[in-house]
């Protein structure tokens, strides 16, 4: 099935096989699998093709990770950009999975682009040994990078759809086109196997033009994310504590290599998300966007400043703790007449609110962010100062998107460790390190495991706000059925719409109908 939408390499292969039958000649106007893998340069170009998929709309391209936040109580996507609006409303189906404004529906796009990436990685893994002149060390590293990327793409599929056809050979329509779904457990097992294999080979860091490639830390951190998803209530109903300890150990492995890889928290939370500070100590794995060539950037600035399709909601404002570390209801710092005063400093570095100054002008509930009254600063170059660099064009933003950053590793570790053994000093240390960078006080001592769980969840929501991770957090915590069955409100506390979430259906995405038409052996998820 996946063959129909796989890489240019496969396409070339099919063309080549057709030519061969007729004339038995090799075309010289295009690459084929037979002719492509003959030099180190081409092999590395093939590997670049494996990475290039990260720029696709179904993965992290355009504004997809920013829009993913809109399927949570944090943000609102008013025009169904990327198809996230219907997910937020709970009206997504296998049929409307392809529909989205600006970019196609994420449910169809993610499936498609993950398999495009998998096809490219499998092609590289199956062919790179044919390259006659290429150092073994580089070949092995290239294979490890492709193995990591394959694991990333499969982990995305397993995270959103559950089990999918597990294909590890290079694309072949005849043998793979009608494969049924493997179980989710089988896919996850392969992902973990790939990540271990990649981590054993990949270097802890790179220099020069190689910065941005997958590292050992990236493989270990993705392993931690996968294991955390497995340990969480959605997938661990019996609360098997070994799953939590496995996740904690995986995150700890990344922390243990902090000195060799140079990991740490970037000192300034706001500046962390600016182009000048890309690829610094907090980056574990990121998507490299550039504006040096048209079309290789993201649309982050366009979305945040002008389109407003990731508009923050009042619920997000109210979720921020006060600067003394207390919730608004318990804090003397809270001023009901101005709910924006004295919040966690990260709020001011993340969100534009009415009365705030943005691009040199004081904002109101209707201008310039007319949809909710709020705008997003994070992952955008725009802030309080005026700017003459107004980006009105998709593909014009160059800030890299961090798929995994070190603060998330600390948060993953703290959460898993707290569940596995309780709120020990390592849990406190991880959370307090993050709060310290933000300028927030340390956690209160002697929290119960349950209180620590709540504090960690609070911390994840605040620290990672608008980065596209919260959707999977509320899924794996199984809190989506509560927080997504609710009205959403703008800055004036007016209701925008009422969302719904079917806990018997919506924790998993449907298999897009377009894929089931190609491959009728793909069983649909429950209730779709």
């Amino acid at each position, binding site marked *: 099935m996946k063959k129909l939408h796989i890489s240019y390499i496969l396409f070339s292969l099919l063309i080549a096989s057709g030519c061969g039958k007729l004339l038995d000649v090799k075309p010289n106007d295009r690459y084929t699998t037979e002719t492509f893998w003959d030099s180190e340069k081409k092999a590395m170009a093939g590997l670049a093709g494996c990475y290039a998929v990260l720029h696709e709309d179904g993965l992290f391209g355009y504004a997809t990770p920013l829009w993913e936040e809109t399927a949570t109580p944090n943000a609102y996507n008013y*025009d169904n950009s990327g198809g996230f609006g219907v997910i937020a409303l709970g009206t997504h189906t296998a049929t409307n999975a392809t529909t989205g404004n600006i970019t196609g529906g994420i449910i169809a796009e993610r499936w498609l682009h993950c398999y495009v990436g998998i096809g490219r990685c499998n092609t590289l893994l199956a062919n790179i040994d044919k390259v006659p002149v290429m150092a073994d060390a580089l070949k092995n590293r290239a294979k490890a990078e492709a193995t990591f990327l394959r694991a990333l793409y499969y982990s995305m599929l397993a995270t959103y759809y559950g089990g999918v056809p597990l294909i590890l050979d290079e694309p072949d329509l005849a043998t793979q086109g009608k494969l049924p779904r493997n179980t989710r457990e089988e896919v996850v097992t392969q992902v973990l196997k790939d990540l271990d294999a990649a981590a054993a080979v990949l270097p802890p860091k790179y220099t020069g033009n190689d910065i941005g490639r997958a590292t050992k830390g990236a493989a270990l951190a993705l392993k931690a994310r996968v294991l955390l998803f497995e340990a969480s209530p959605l997938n661990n109903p019996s609360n098997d504590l070994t799953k939590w300890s496995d996740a904690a150990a995986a995150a700890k492995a990344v922390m243990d290599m902090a000195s060799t890889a140079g990991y740490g928290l970037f000192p300034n939370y706001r500046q962390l998300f600016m182009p000048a500070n890309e690829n610094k100590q907090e980056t574990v794995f990121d998507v490299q966007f550039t504006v040096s060539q*048209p079309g290789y950037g993201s649309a982050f600035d366009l979305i945040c400043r*002008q*389109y407003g*399709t990731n508009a923050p909601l009042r619920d997000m404002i109210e979720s921020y703790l006060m600067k003394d570390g207390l919730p608004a209801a318990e804090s003397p710092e809270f001023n009901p007449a101005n709910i924006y005063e004295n919040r966690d400093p990260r709020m001011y570095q993340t969100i534009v609110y009415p009365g705030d100054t943005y691009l040199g002008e004081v904002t109101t509930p209707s201008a310039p962010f*007319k949809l909710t009254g709020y705008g997003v600063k994070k992952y955008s170059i725009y802030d309080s100062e005026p700017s003459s660099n*107004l980006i009105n*064009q998709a*593909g014009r933003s160059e800030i890299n998107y961090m798929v995994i950053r070190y603060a998330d590793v600390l948060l993953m570790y703290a959460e898993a460790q707290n569940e596995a053994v309780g709120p020990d000093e390592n849990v406190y240390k991880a959370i307090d390190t993050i709060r310290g960078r933000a300028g927030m006080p340390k956690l209160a001592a002697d929290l119960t495991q349950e209180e620590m769980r709540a504090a960690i969840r609070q911390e994840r929501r605040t620290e990672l706000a608008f980065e596209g991770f919260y959707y999977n957090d509320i899924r794996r915590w199984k809190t989506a059925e509560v927080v997504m069955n609710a009205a959403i409100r703008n800055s004036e506390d007016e209701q925008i719409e009422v969302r719904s979430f079917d806990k018997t259906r919506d924790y998993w995405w449907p298999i897009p109908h377009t894929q089931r038409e190609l491959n009728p052996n793909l069983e649909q998820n429950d209730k779709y």
Partner: protein
Amino acid sequence: MKRISIWMFGSMMCSIIACGKGSATPEGPGDGNPGPGPGTEEPKPPATVADCKKCIVLAEQLHNRVAIADVASKQIFWEWKPEESNVKPEHLAWFTNTSDAKPVYNGKYILVTASGGGVALVRIADKKTVFYAYAGGNTHSAELLPDGNIVSASSTGNFMTVFRVDTTKAATEVYSKNFPLAFGHNVVWDEKNQVLWSAADHQLLSFTYNFNCGEPALTQKDAVSLPGKDAHDLFPVYGQNALWLTNTTNVYTYNLDTKKLEEANVLQANIKSVSSGDAAFPTIIIRPKTSWWTDEVMDAKGNTVFYQSGLKIYKARWYLKNTFSYPAVHDMKQCQ
């Protein structure tokens, strides 16, 4: 000497067809609706597009259509929707989010593009889509070439697409060829100088056309550096040898005689389209209120020229003759 050049040809046949099939507006006594109260004389829209005195052609995305609005009556009285024309159902997605609509062929046709990738030539009289094809890459605008072929510009695709216009071909069998064009948003034919202009990102480029009807191709000729980036609209200044040019921050005019670029005396920043006319026609602009669209066509100072709540107008062009791009007599033609 330039004069207001509203098209007045409207043959009897066109009038009959347009009257019978064209009215998209339920308003007005002629339709049996209650008219305005006694003593008031609300203007009525023209009977046909050819009768327009002051009309605006809108790329309107709420209904994925081209709409023609009459300023005096404040009504949209003509529209083209692909699903109500002869566009095949499987190609309707090509016409999602109408991105430009230029009156061409002496006001008898409209050249349409949509972000979905579609390019169409529509006959106003009967709303027939006489030619359509797919460019893709977020198509933003198109232009007629002198032999009737069409060129379009696509933004995220970073290309121009040249189509061989042969109305006997199915949409999927149309010959086309892509040429690189950074952040392609616009294309304008220069009849006098016989070149195609495109403001591509931060450069104003000119291209020569090979006039090979069967295998049309464009070759870059000159490049003029532009201030700013993300050039958006490029459209002739009415009655002058000059072009309107908009980008993220400014609106300029580029005088082809003096080769000078000057900031225009209109609202600046994030202007999606500009269109001008003779003295009786204010320069009209589109400035988004939400995302990339608005419900209002404004003049250069921000006064309302046409407004209809809820519309998603992306571009607006006066329904006027375009002597910059086309000859005085300009009948529909196709590749032969």
